[in-house]
């Protein structure tokens, strides 16, 4: 197995850094990185052994300017590993110094006592000699038999999918509602209404957002407004939004009636997917 990639675009480095810090903040049990000719896919399980709940795919062409990859076999041309996003994030923080951003960041699969993903960062310096900073992030290679466990699930088409551009406001509202109750009800309508609601012994609390762009909704023949709602653990979505280091431009909330909430955090062309299962009251 062989992997070498060279990043020269400061934007791509920043994107990878932001993604790694976001995943690190989520405090996942483990993060899996799958590398193929086309994609680098980060995925995360809620706890060891459970299915993938969070993933983000980055296109190799946008990330790396040079790429060499030899996978496990010619047929399965992939490399799959566990790594710590916090170490990746801290390795990539050295890609900036007082003089500016790194000229290039090279990623390499190496075997130094144990398998490592080596980050070689070429930094600008005042002198003539360039400065190189090397971080070795220990990894665990995942045998091919376990690969299917780390593939992200097929998400069913949501009943309603709604786009939220006021990310900050939604984050604050969810954060306040979480302080009031551990459960949160999300309701979306095909006319672009979004309602975040909770109930406790102390009272009921509901925030209404109007005129949100509806990305997807099921056709109703009678022309009625279609409404989908579900209850979720408020902590999960609050933590997701609190971990967000991506400078998210907008959120997409895909609701599957009483079953699943599919949150997508979008920044430029990067989409971080997160699944939150509905709870019953």
């Amino acid at each position, binding site marked *: 197995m062989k992997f070498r990639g060279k990043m020269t675009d400061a934007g791509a480095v920043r994107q990878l850094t932001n993604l790694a810090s976001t995943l690190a903040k989520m405090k996942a049990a483990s993060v899996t990185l799958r590398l193929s000719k086309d994609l680098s896919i980060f995925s995360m399980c809620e706890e060891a052994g459970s299915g993938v709940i969070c993933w983000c795919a980055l296109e190799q062409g946008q990330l790396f300017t040079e790429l060499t990859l030899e996978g496990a076999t010619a047929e399965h041309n992939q490399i799959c590993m566990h790594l710590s996003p916090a170490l990746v994030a801290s390795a990539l923080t050295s890609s900036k110094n007082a003089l500016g951003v790194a000229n290039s960041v090279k990623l390499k699969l190496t075997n130094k006592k144990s398998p490592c993903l080596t980050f070689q960062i070429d930094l600008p310096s005042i002198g003539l000699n360039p400065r190189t900073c090397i971080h070795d992030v220990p990894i665990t290679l995942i045998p091919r038999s376990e690969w299917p466990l780390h593939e992200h699930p097929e998400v069913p088409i949501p009943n309603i999918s709604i786009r939220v551009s006021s990310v900050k*406001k939604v984050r604050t509202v969810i954060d*306040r509602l979480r302080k009031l109750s551990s459960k949160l009800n999300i309701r979306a309508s095909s006319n672009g209404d979004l309602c975040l609601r909770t109930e406790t012994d102390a*009272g*009921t609390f*509901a925030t*209404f957002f109007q005129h949100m762009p509806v990305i997807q909704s099921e056709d109703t023949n009678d022309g009625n407004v279609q409404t989908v709602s579900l209850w979720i653990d408020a902590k999960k979505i609050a933590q997701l939004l609190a971990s967000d280091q991506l400078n998210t431009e907008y959120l997409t909330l895909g609701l599957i009636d009483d079953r699943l909430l599919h949150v997508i955090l979008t920044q430029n062309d990067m989409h971080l997917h997160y699944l939150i299962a509905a709870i019953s009251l």
Partner: protein
Amino acid sequence: MPVQVSTVVDAEESQYQLVFRMDNVKSIYHLLKSINFQPRATFFATDSGLKVSVESAKCCQANAFIQTEIFQEYTLQPTDESVSFSLDLNVLLECLDIFGDANSNSSPTALMLRYQGYGHPIKLLLEEEDVVTECSIRTLEVEELANFDFTSDDVINKIILKSEPLKEIFNAIEPSTDIVEFNLYSNEPIVKLRTVGYMGEVEIDISKDSDMIELFQCESDSTSKYKYCHFKKALKALAISQKVSIRTDDGGLLCMQFMIKNDCGHICFIEFHCLPVVDDD
């Protein structure tokens, strides 16, 4: 469907004992936040405004007075009995800050509060940039509050100070302090603050010609001791105040009045009463 704050019909309002609106919820948020040392707060509505009382173990009590000028609209239906209710102040504060702009300069949140009468919940409507929050907070039975009757006949000493220097003095008090001794003398130094804690004793003297003193009346020398854990409940109110009036009566009861100017230039008062510690010897 949410109701717009500005379009509620007047006829509907007559069924409410108390209705008020304000354009910027910040004006009362900070005031209420500064007396939030116990979750249970009691609201008394009168023609001149609102009084909000918070009490801890019948030993200390804080009252915030919010004059009607602060509200853009204030309607109190004439009734035989006084309009009063208790509620969980933490819940109310979370609701008032649902859009998270109490501590930022973003667009103001408008508030409307309605109370139908005994046994009914408080209905809040908060609006900011087309996003509306509806809250219904259950009210609690009003419990009898301690009556710290502070008639001017019993007042023996009175001092008015600027808050800014006093904040520095009070913040310098060691957190492990047990007792705060408050001495007022007719001769120099006119104020002596003595604290006793595990870490030792601290004495702070304020002389008569200090700039921070605006008014000083001392009929007889007085010494009274207060529990620091009670005394420090007043510090949050001190932090947002401009001036403080400190009065003591012959029984050692302490009354601090904080003058607070909000962003719109309105003046509010917070009154803080604290019972003295009775000396063992």
